[in-house]
């Protein structure tokens, strides 16, 4: 059909961020989605131009701005807006020489080695990334020496890598990385990963409340939540979900904080309830989370996914209460 032919010609096998699309990428579905989404993007861009003229430093995030951010920050403004709404820009202004000083300091060999191991395996399929490896090394090595409690944690390579793709700026990537690791999800990447283990337990409790049969099924099949979701939380979905979806998620994360991370994880479970319950052994379940879930609608229609995640009821007070209960758990 014409549609199929034109969609393969219009969309190359590399996306706008330089990532190779998978062999089974659904071009037809994507074409359909994009024909509407592109128009929306253009409209949105004009609105954002107006916003930035009125409120250049984005100091207060009122409900209107929040709504706009949830609809997606236009690509060209993204780096700048992230820096402002997260507060990273302010921190950078306060310590303008920090990053350069870190780069000039002495590096520990052990840290360098562990980063170097992960460089070639960070986004090997991204066509721009070959030239970015050295800059990614700089960001990670600077951060590891800046925050000794974290050092280098596997997974940060994917976060920093994606930040670098979006900002195309080492220093901004450093500050945004610092914001994620220290303010959004503190103590996830430290040596004992205490808060990661706690929040995985919190997440399980939330599934038990919202979809007890799903939790029971997963428990019966014997797949721990740590296997399913560690990477989701450690990487804030980078290298887990498709890039466009991750960037839309990060828009909200920078504006609204850690609650969004739970929203996404909950949405992934709740929108796949039937599929999860349909798995009749542990291998099928693992495969659902590893491969099947990352194809289909989530890939082609990030917009609906974001909408779905905001339909889920979730209160900060519930999260905080569960966090108190789950401190110290490490067997989720």
């Amino acid at each position, binding site marked *: 059909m014409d549609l199929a032919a034109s969609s393969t010609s219009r969309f190359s096998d590399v996306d706008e961020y330089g990532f190779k699309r998978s062999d089974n990428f659904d071009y037809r579905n994507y074409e359909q989605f994009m024909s509407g989404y592109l128009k929306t993007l253009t409209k949105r861009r004009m609105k954002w131009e107006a916003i930035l003229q009125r409120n250049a430093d984005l100091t207060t995030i009122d409900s209107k701005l929040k709504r706009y951010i949830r609809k997606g920050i236009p690509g060209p403004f993204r780096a700048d807006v992230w820096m402002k709404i997260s507060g990273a820009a302010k921190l950078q202004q306060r310590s303008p020489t920090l990053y350069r000083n870190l780069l000039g300091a002495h590096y520990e060999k052990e840290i360098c080695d562990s980063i170097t*191991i992960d460089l070639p*395996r960070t986004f090997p399929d991204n066509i721009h990334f070959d030239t970015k490896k050295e800059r990614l090394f700089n960001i990670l090595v600077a951060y590891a020496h800046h925050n000794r409690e974290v050092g280098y944690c596997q997974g940060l390579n994917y976060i920093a890598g994606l930040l670098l793709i979006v900002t195309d700026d080492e220093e901004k990537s450093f500050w945004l990385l610092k914001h994620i690791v220290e303010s959004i999800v503190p103590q996830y*990447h430290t040596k004992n990963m205490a808060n990661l283990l706690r929040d995985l337990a919190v997440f399980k409790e939330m599934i038990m409340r919202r979809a007890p049969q799903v939790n029971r099924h997963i428990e*019966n099949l014997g797949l721990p939540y740590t296997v399913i979701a560690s990477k989701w939380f450690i990487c804030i979905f980078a290298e887990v979900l498709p890039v466009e979806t991750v960037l839309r998620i990060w828009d909200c994360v920078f504006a609204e904080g850690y609650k969004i991370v739970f929203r996404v994880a909950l949405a992934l479970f709740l929108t796949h309830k039937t599929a999860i319950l349909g*798995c009749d052994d*542990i291998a099928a379940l*693992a495969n659902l989370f590893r491969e099947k879930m990352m194809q289909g609608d989530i890939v082609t229609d990030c917009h609906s996914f974001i909408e779905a995640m905001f339909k889920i009821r979730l209160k900060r007070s519930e999260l905080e209460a569960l966090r108190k209960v789950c401190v110290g758990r490490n067997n989720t």
Partner: protein
Amino acid sequence: MATTARSGGNASGSTAQRPNGTQQNKNCQFKLVLLGESAVGKSSLVLRFVKGQFHEYQESTIGAAFLTQTICIEDTVVKFEIWDTAGQERYHSLAPMYYRGAQAAIVVYDIQNQDSFQRAKTWVKELHKQASPNIVIALAGNKADLSNIRVVEYEEAKQYAEENGLLFMETSAKTGMNVNDIFLAIAKKLPKNDGAHNQGAPAGRRLNDNENNRQTNNCCK
């Protein structure tokens, strides 16, 4: 995708494919965990064994990964539940969850990296202390295709393995050398009496007949 079906999950009703026609096969299921320092090739060994592939830039494992593969030895269908772990030291706190109840472990080191061999020895000690007493442990000296730049001698590792009652092979996930063989050697050493599939299975884990009878295209044909 054929590989999906093979690695479990979608294999469709298959009792009819029972090999050797006449004989009723035994089915065993074993939990196997891979341990070892980061970047020694754990995930690559699993990928080679389960999908027959090798990626030069294998993504790093965050947390852990789970895959299955089935092989046949004599009249027994052996299904491995494979738990591939993250190598970085800080992920260590998660490891006991994966080796708890495991009937087998492959401890991997990189023959070009002396530290990774020392780390492997530490894993073996931890397993002897903490894992089930009957666990079958194999030591894999991986990246054997690079043996011209090795720093860990074959004899040294072999002797260590013998002293500690481990199976030992040098492997290459890249060329495939000894990859199937090491899993096969483990399968041979595991007890395959009736009900072996139940030992040490995670709590709440049930095998229904349907699952038990699944066949895969990797074996017996």
